[in-house]
Structures are given as structure tokens and as C-alpha cells.
């Protein structure tokens, strides 16, 4: 296994720092002498090391009990009624805030504490049930979704995940029923994607009873309305063994009432305007020692796990948004007549509507695979959650954009409501981990996992006599994939009519494993410096995950004989054709010399552009 410390490049440090806390099992050493540790069940992590672990994806998870399904079903109607009868997203967008009456109704509805246990005043729902409600939010008002999400998905999630019984007792009822807003305060002016570099500092008092916090945070959702915040700051930690002093991030629960907590004016934003975003300042804030969240110095882990834990919600939310965009576009295509025909009869429009539907189906399939894996007790979902966040945010943008295109001039008008959705959607590719960082996270997390496996193989070869089983297994896997039989076989997991498509996917999965191995052999640990290649790998991983979850879900639909089964199979087939082609291309590019030429050119061009501060070419007409 590589030594992470030897990596110097800053972005790699960030990503690796993230992945080192993301999932402890990804970085564990596989020592055959020790008692076997629980296997990493992540489907995606495993394909990086050429092993096929279907458990989390086949059959499509179905974790809710009949009673849970029933009770979730009974929540949907009142939740939808709130959006149709009380909330007005367009009005809030114009006003730059959601009015008090609406927020009050939302509190009454119970939407601010969906996952808080019932004994603390919440609804006590699991991730999947939460996801189902998120879809409704996403379909109706993304800005309000941020107000709700900043509160419970990240604002006080830390207390749910890491809180002591006393902290839970004290704070959960407040944020559930007493109408106290929560916020998550990590980002700082000099620390965006590189969250470990924050400068806010908390110093322990001489009597060890409290910390004094100073610093400032920017772009904090609910920053102006939250009275309880999860705040991250540097603290000095003394290594108990060496006595060495070191700065490490610690998470704190900070109440506005501690004093010294102020905020700036609401930021003017491109979208999600109705949600409150401000700077938050901390000046000599006295935080009692019992308000440390998680371990002292363990704040980075707390931050990353809060984000990891909430990421699936974005996929669910945005699949609801996409659903609404498709609905608006479809109703237009069904009624608008041009050149004597309804729009729905034109191939260009059909292609758009089909593509939009395919992407929505895959986004939703991902989100609910992950939420159900989480509810099933899995710890190995971080890679998939990152994939689903990238996939959902980019495809929701695409779907909304295409819906606007179908509506033509009408789509450009404020009254139609799609321009607001498009503005609101833009931030989803940026916040809670930019898609660029998450792509590196996906590729490097997987590669690291594969790397540890290769190391294990190498040591097995040193002592072949005792590791024969492992070596033979590996040898036959390799031989099979080289002669094209395919190491991966999805055939027993999918519906008969999906077989040829499952085979295409299996080919992608095999090529994926081979590519990772080839890249590791070629670049060794320097692969971390090859961001363009890492992106190609990440894109292939995303496509593979999309294929797998849709094949699984549509097979289930067919098995249950759902009325929509045939349609779902068609969505899956079309997606597989597109995604497998793209994945193969990306994987081939990752190792091809032709592509090497391109990436080198791109890198040189970028350097020149940066040197010249922009476009650098002689005027096209010489003046």
C-alpha cells in the first residue's frame, strides 16, 4: 500500500485526506495471516480490483418493510399538499426568502426533522424514506430544499451521527420541534475544496473547561437564521506518545447564544435565492468543552462523514427535479402544434424526451440503491454516493436545459418556472464537494483500494506455498478476462431480455479492472498526478454504475410484473448502449498513446493561457 504522506501535490493531498477518512475499510491492509476482516461490499470499489461483488446492487435492494412502505405512502400526500397549497417557489425566489408563514407551516408539517428519532420529536424515518420525501422537495422548490437540507442533512446531522447522549438530549428537540435552525459551517474564504486548510481556531482555556473560537466562515446556508451550528476549527492537539504539538480540525456545536457569533447580509446569488446564505463570524466565542462533536482533533472525519452521509439525498432530490422538468416538457410536446403536427411527433423532440427520461431513471435508481444500502447497514457507500452526486447534478442540469429547449421561447420566460430551476440547479455541481474533486475522489479511492490488493498479491507471490489458493484464483481471473470470456458475469442477475446488454456491461467492467491495473503498473503511485486520466476513469466508473443499477432495477420491475416494466427495460437498454460505448472509449483513452498526445497538448495550452492571462492568439484579421 502506498504511503499517503509521500504525496506532495496539494490537490492529491486533499483528495487523499478525504478518502482516508471516507471509509476505513478502503485503506485497510489485507494481511492473510490476520483473521479475515469484513469484506468491503462496495460494488464500485471492487471493480477497481477486478472483483465482482454483487451484493449491494443485485438484486435491486428492497429494505423497507411493508409497514414502512405504508407509512411513507401516507406521508406523501400531505407533503405534496404543502407544496401545491401553501408554498410558492416563484414568489420566494423573487423575494429572496421564504416567508415566515410558509416556514411556519413547514415546521408544523415536521419537515425539518425527518430523520431525527421520534423520542426527540422527529419523524424517525430512514434514509430511503427521507429520499422519497426529498424527491417531492426537488420537484417543487430547490431553494426551500436547501433551507431544509442545510438544517438537517448537514446542519445537525453531526449531532445525530456523533453526538453524545447529552448532546442529543439537549439539541435534537430544539432543532426538531422548537423551530431552531441549524447550519454547517466549514467553508472559509481561503478554504473551499481544501477543507483541511481552514484557519478558524479554537484555543482551550487554561482551566480546560471551554474553547475560545475565532474565525470566519463564508457561504453558510442558513447562516443568518441558524442558532445552532456545527463549526469546524483548528485546535492544537498534543500527541500523547511523542508530546508533539500539531494543529488538527475539531468539530464543535456552537450556539448563537454563546455570544460573539454574528453574520453578514444575505448573499446575492445566481440561484437558490430564497435560501439564506451568509458569512458567519466568530469572535471570542466561548464554547463549553462538552460541545466538542466527535473526538478532539477528529473534526475532519466528522465533516467528511456528514457530507458523505447526506450526499445520496441530492440524487433523490434532483431526480424529483428532473421528473418535474420532464412533466413540463412532455405536456408542452403533447399539446403544442407547429407545421401542422404536435411536437411529440417530431424525432428531434422524441430524442430529447427519451434522453431526459433515461437520465432521470438512472439518477433515481442510483439514489435509492445507495439509500437502501445505507439503511441495510452498509458502511461501503461513499464511492457510490459521490458518483450519484456527480451524475444527478450534471444530468439534472442537462434535463432542465433540454426542457427549456423543448418549450422554446416559452421556456425562457420566467412565468414557465424552468429558468428558476436552471439557476437553482447550477450550485449542485459546486457545493457539497465540487464534481471535479469528487471525480478525483472516485478514481483515487478506487485505485487506492486496488493498489492495496496488488500489494497483497505481491506478498503472496513471495510465499507461494501458503498462498496458492489466492494466486490460482487471481491467475484464472486474469486468464479469463484476457481471452475475452469475461471475469465478470451479470447474466444470472438480470432479466433474460437484458442479457446482451448485461454482457456489454460486463465487458466494460472487465476492461475497467484491466485499465486500473495497467495504469498502476505504468504510473505506480504517480497516477495521482494524472488528473485527466483519473477523470476518464471516474467517468467510466459513473457509466458502469448507471448501467448496473438500471439493469438491476428494471429486472426487478419485470419480475414484479409492474405495469411500467417494459418501459423501464427500454430505458435501461438505451442507457446501456450509450453508457457502455462511452465507458469503453474513456477506458481506452486512459491508456492510449493517442490520447496521451491530446492530454499533453491540453496541458500545454492551459499553461500558455494562464501565462498570458487569457486568450493568446494573433488577431484574426491582424488588427
Amino acid at each position, binding site marked *: 500500500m502506498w504511503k499517503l504522506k509521500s504525496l506532495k501535490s496539494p490537490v492529491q493531498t486533499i483528495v487523499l485526506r478525504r478518502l482516508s477518512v471516507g471509509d476505513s475499510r478502503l485503506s485497510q491492509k489485507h494481511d492473510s495471516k490476520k483473521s479475515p476482516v469484513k469484506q468491503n461490499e462496495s460494488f464500485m470499489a471492487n471493480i477497481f480490483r477486478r472483483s465482482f461483488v454483487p451484493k449491494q446492487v443485485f438484486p435491486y435492494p428492497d429494505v423497507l418493510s411493508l409497514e414502512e412502505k405504508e407509512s411513507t405512502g401516507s406521508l406523501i400526500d*400531505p407533503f405534496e399538499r404543502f407544496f401545491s397549497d401553501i408554498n410558492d417557489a416563484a414568489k420566494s425566489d423573487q423575494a429572496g426568502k421564504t416567508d415566515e408563514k410558509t416556514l411556519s407551516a413547514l415546521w408544523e408539517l415536521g419537515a425539518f426533522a425527518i430523520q431525527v428519532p*421520534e423520542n426527540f420529536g422527529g419523524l424517525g424515518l430512514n434514509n430511503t424514506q427521507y429520499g422519497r420525501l426529498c424527491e417531492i422537495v426537488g420537484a417543487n422548490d430547490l431553494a426551500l430544499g436547501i433551507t431544509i437540507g442545510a438544517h438537517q442533512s448537514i446542519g445537525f446531522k453531526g449531532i445525530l451521527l456523533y453526538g453524545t447522549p447529552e448532546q442529543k438530549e439537549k439539541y435534537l428537540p430544539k432543532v426538531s420541534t422548537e423551530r431552531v435552525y441549524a447550519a454547517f459551517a466549514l467553508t472559509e474564504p481561503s478554504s473551499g475544496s481544501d477543507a483541511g486548510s481552514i484557519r478558524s481556531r479554537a484555543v482551550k482555556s487554561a482551566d480546560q473547561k471551554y474553547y475560545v473560537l475565532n474565525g470566519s466562515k463564508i457561504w453558510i446556508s442558513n447562516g443568518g437564521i441558524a442558532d445552532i451550528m456545527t463549526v469546524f476549527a483548528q485546535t492544537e492537539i498534543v500527541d500523547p506518545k511523542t508530546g508533539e504539538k500539531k494543529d488538527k480540525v475539531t468539530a464543535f456545536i456552537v450556539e448563537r447564544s454563546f455570544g460573539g457569533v454574528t453574520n453578514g447580509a444575505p448573499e446575492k446569488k445566481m440561484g437558490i435565492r430564497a435560501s439564506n446564505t451568509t458569512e458567519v463570524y466568530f469572535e471570542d466565542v466561548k464554547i463549553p468543552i462538552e460541545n466538542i462533536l466527535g473526538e478532539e482533533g477528529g473534526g475532519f472525519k466528522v465533516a467528511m462523514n456528514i457530507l458523505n452521509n447526506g450526499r445520496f439525498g441530492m440524487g433523490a432530490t434532483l431526480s424529483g427535479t428532473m421528473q418535474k422538468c420532464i412533466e413540463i416538457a412532455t405536456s408542452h410536446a403533447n399539446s403544442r402544434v407547429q407545421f401542422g403536427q404536435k411536437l411529440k411527433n417530431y424525432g428531434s423532440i422524441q430524442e430529447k424526451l427519451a434522453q431526459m427520461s433515461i437520465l432521470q431513471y438512472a439518477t433515481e435508481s442510483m439514489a435509492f440503491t445507495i439509500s437502501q444500502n445505507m439503511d441495510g447497514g452498509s458502511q461501503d457507500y461513499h464511492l457510490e454516493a459521490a458518483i450519484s452526486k456527480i451524475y444527478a447534478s450534471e444530468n439534472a442540469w442537462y434535463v432542465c436545459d433540454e426542457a427549456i429547449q423543448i418549450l422554446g421561447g416559452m421556456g425562457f420566460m420566467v412565468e414557465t418556472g424552468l429558468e428558476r430551476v436552471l439557476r437553482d440547479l447550477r450550485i449542485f455541481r459546486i457545493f457539497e464537494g465540487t464534481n471535479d474533486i469528487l471525480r478525483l475522489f472516485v478514481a483515487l479511492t478506487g485505485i487506492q483500494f486496488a493498489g492495496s490488493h496488488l500489494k497483497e498479491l505481491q506478498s503472496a507471490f513471495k510465499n507461494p506455498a501458503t498462498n496458492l489458493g489466492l494466486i490460482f484464483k487471481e491467475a484464472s481471473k486474469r486468464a479469463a478476462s484476457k481471452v475475452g470470456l469475461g471475469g465478470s458475469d451479470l447474466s444470472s442477475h438480470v432479466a433474460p431480455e437484458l442479457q446482451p446488454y448485461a454482457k456489454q456491461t460486463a465487458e466494460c467492467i472487465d476492461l475497467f479492472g484491466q485499465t486500473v491495473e495497467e495504469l498502476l503498473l505504468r504510473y505506480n503511485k504517480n497516477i495521482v498526478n494524472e488528473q485527466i486520466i483519473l477523470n476518464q476513469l471516474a467517468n467510466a466508473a459513473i457509466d458502469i454504475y448507471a448501467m448496473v443499477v438500471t439493469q438491476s432495477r428494471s429486472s426487478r420491475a419485470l419480475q414484479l410484473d409492474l405495469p411500467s416494466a417494459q418501459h423501464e427495460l427500454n430505458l435501461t437498454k438505451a442507457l446501456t448502449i450509450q453508457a457502455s460505448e462511452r465507458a469503453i472509449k474513456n477506458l481506452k483513452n486512459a491508456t492510449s498513446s493517442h490520447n496521451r498526445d491530446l492530454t499533453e497538448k491540453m496541458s500545454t495550452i492551459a499553461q500558455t493561457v494562464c501565462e498570458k492571462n487569457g486568450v493568446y492568439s494573433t488577431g484574426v484579421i491582424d488588427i
Partner: protein
Amino acid sequence: MARVLVGVKRVIDYAVKVRVKPDKTGVVTQGVKHSMNPFDEIAVEEAVKMKEKKLATEVIAVSVGPAQSAEVIRTAMAMGADRGVHVEVPQAEYELLQPIHISKILAKLALDEKADLVILGKQAIDDDANQTAQMTAAVLNWPQGTFCNKIEKTDAGLTITREIDGGLETIKTKIPAVLSADLRLNTPRYATLPNIMKAKKKPLKKVTAKDLGIDTTPRIDIISVEDPPVRQAGATVADVDALVAKLKEGGHI
């Protein structure tokens, strides 16, 4: 006053466009959104309000119907009813069930549960019968207050404002009594999510009509269910004279 019994019926949601089954034996219910009859929501709201004003001690929601009818009892409990009674009737039998059967069931339950007041919606939006409250009062031999616009507690009993053709009528009644809720009696509250979750823990008793000793043998046969005739296309007339001429021609004036 102590106990209020409220009837809640599960009907096809008001927003759904109802379709007749191809074999004309009824309407399509499979995969169609259902919800509580809107007039029953008003009845539940009124009962819950009475409880909040300490005019009632307990609100019992009753539904007669197939297994899914339990859903509307849960909704009533999420709105504030204390417990529920589900009189389960198999789907096939339910389709032939008439107000006469329901009123006998409700009357029996009112006595069994020692209810002082039965509040029902004035009619269900599926069959529009508008008979159950009246028949229930008759079976029980209790006074009835139908089409309630306002219900007030007075010393001797209740003062009820009723919606009648062309205006309002005020009557006084003793209790026990059977009331039916009209549209303007109140605005039903939304069931909040926490209350929906809490409602799952409220007691819901399941019984059959047989348990209650009520004979639900159908008295009718459904011969055919038909779509209403398609409206004839209209025509535009040039002026008032032409309109009058057309109306005369059609024998309308």
C-alpha cells in the same frame, strides 16, 4: 357530552378523472389514487375541534370497506381522532353495499361504543347518495341535524345552523344525535407528518359486519355502469336574434 363517532369513507380522489371499466360492471379503482371523502374530512375536523374545546372526550373514526379503508382511518387519527374501528368488508361485497347497510353498522357501533354524537359527511363524492346520516338517525331513533353549517353547544343540547335551499335554518336538538357535515362547516386541517407517524400507534380495531350482527346481503344487482353521454358540440350564433330563434327552434323557450 362524551364520545363522538365519525364516519370516514375511502373514495377515489376528487382530482382523479373517473373511468368506467370496459366490462361496465363499475369504475376503474386499481392503481387509482384514493383519499378520504372530503365531507368526511370536515366531519373529522368538527369532532376534533369539539375535543379541543373539551366538548368531547373521545373521537372514534369508523370506516366500512376493504382492507385499504384502514388508510383513511389512519388519516383521521393523524388529524386527531383517538382510535379507529375498521369494519372490513371484502371488495366484491363492498361494491354492492348500500347506505342502508352502512347506517345499520354505524347505528350498532354507536350503541356499542356508547357514542353521544355521530358526525358524518353529508354525502360521499363517489355515489353521492346523501342517505347514510338520515338512515342512521332513523335506525337509532335519534334526532338528526343534516347539512350542518355551524354546530354550537348549548345547555340542553346543540344549536345547529343548517344549509337549506336559499338560506340557512337554525334548529335545536338534544343529544344523542346524528349530524351530517356540509361544505362550509369548517376547513379541515392538514395531517402533519409527526401526527401521521403518531397515528400509527393509535388503536385500530378490526371487526366484520357479521361480528356486529348486521346482514349485508346485497339487495341490488349492478346491471351496467355507463359513461355519461358525450356533450354535443356547441355552435356560435351571429347575434341575439339568431340565439332566440335557435332556442325557440329547440323548444327551450
